[in-house]
């Protein structure tokens, strides 16, 4: 203990305000410095790293959600576009079908017309041939018939006179020429 000296007023007795040992001050500094060093090197970086990771996880989550939303929007737009495309396609297919149907009908009609024409022509030709044949046969038969008839008539009258014979000849030739011209006209 320092005894108070009234002759030296600057020399105060600080009591408990004076540290008992200088080592208190020094050790106070050294120890807090030591703690400071360890916290600065190890503890604070560890915590800050974890906080950064946590912040990253949170903002990362938000970013991921935003990305997913954007993706969904994109998918929706794509789907809508596809739907519109499909609708357009369906319309065009319908149009095509209509056109094709009309074409097919026209073709069929044309074909049918051609066929019917062909059938008509064929039948006409057939009929003509048949008629020709019938005509010729008829002519032959009529000729024969006429001759036979004529022979019958002539046979009786030929005995009468010479004149009747000439009449028959003339008739036959007339008949022949008439048949000839008739046959030519009527077939046309």
């Amino acid at each position, binding site marked *: 203990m320092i005894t108070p000296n009234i002759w030296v007023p600057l020399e105060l007795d600080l009591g408990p305000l004076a540290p*008992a040992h200088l080592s208190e001050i020094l*050790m106070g500094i050294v120890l807090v410095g030591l703690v400071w060093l360890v916290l600065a090197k190890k503890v604070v970086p560890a915590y800050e790293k*974890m906080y950064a990771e946590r912040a990253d996880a949170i903002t990362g989550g938000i970013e991921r959600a935003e990305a997913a939303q954007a993706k969904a929007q994109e998918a929706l737009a794509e789907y809508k576009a596809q739907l519109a495309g499909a609708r357009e396609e369906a319309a065009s297919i319908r149009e095509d079908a209509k056109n094709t149907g009309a074409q097919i009908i026209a073709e069929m009609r044309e074909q049918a017309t051609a066929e019917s024409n062909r059938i008509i022509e064929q039948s006409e030709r057939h009929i003509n041939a048949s008629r020709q044949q019938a005509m010729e046969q008829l002519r032959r038969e009529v000729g024969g018939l006429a001759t036979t008839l004529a022979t019958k008539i002539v046979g009786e009258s030929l005995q009468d006179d010479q004149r009747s014979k000439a009449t028959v000849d003339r008739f036959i030739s007339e008949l022949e020429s008439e048949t000839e011209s008739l046959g030519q006209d009527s077939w046309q």
Partner: protein
Amino acid sequence: MSVTWLLLPMEAGTSGEGYTSPSVEDFRFEGTFGVDWLNKPLWQAIIAALLVIVLWLLASRRLKVKPSKGQYVGEFIYDFIRNGIARDIIGPEYRRFLPYLLALFSFILINNWFGELFIFMFPTFSNVGYAYGLALTTLVVYIAAGVKKHGRGYLKSALIPAGVPPYLYVLIIPLEFLSKFITQPVTLALRLFANMFAGHLVVLVFVVGGAYLLTYSGNLGYNAAGVISLIFSVAIFALEIFVGALQAYIFTVLSAQYVSASMADDH
């Protein structure tokens, strides 16, 4: 509660012969191992520093983004200093000062709580030297922060507040010097020391006085008063636990405040 350890502060040869009220002498300790300065408060300070280091190292091991219960406690204290003090007061540059403020807070807190902890029963900072040491460190830290920020302009920015007319410089500069470099650190140290010293003294009065009255033979009234005194000392202990945390907080907040002021652009 065993009465024997309550009597420990009375060790200075008062065995049975009258009451000695607690005094400054109860804050002086003998050295150990024959070294005068290697006394109980110094051991406490060393143990506290090691304890703080070990606890923080344990708390910062394997930190998870999703905290466990244990991590949550560590994070709560860390956040309290980081966001509640460092970031709020210092601003965007808080990261550099965070380790110091964290060290300051936890070191002071543990040492203060030693005042209420069995075995120790003595707040380290009621020996004024440790408080001086911490205040000096804070002084160096905030001067360094100012010099780093303003370079040669630090003295000017520290001593001349913005908007002071030049004819007042004669008055302002010595006042600001006194405030910035002497009053601030001294009051910082004394506030912590005085709170711890007074708190411990009150605890001693209640516990030592109570124990003395309780064991006083021949007067039942004294003994009853001793019981009440000891019961009331529990409330004082609770108060001291609060004061210990509060003083650790105040010391840290003011240190951050001084750092912030010396880095501020205007004054």
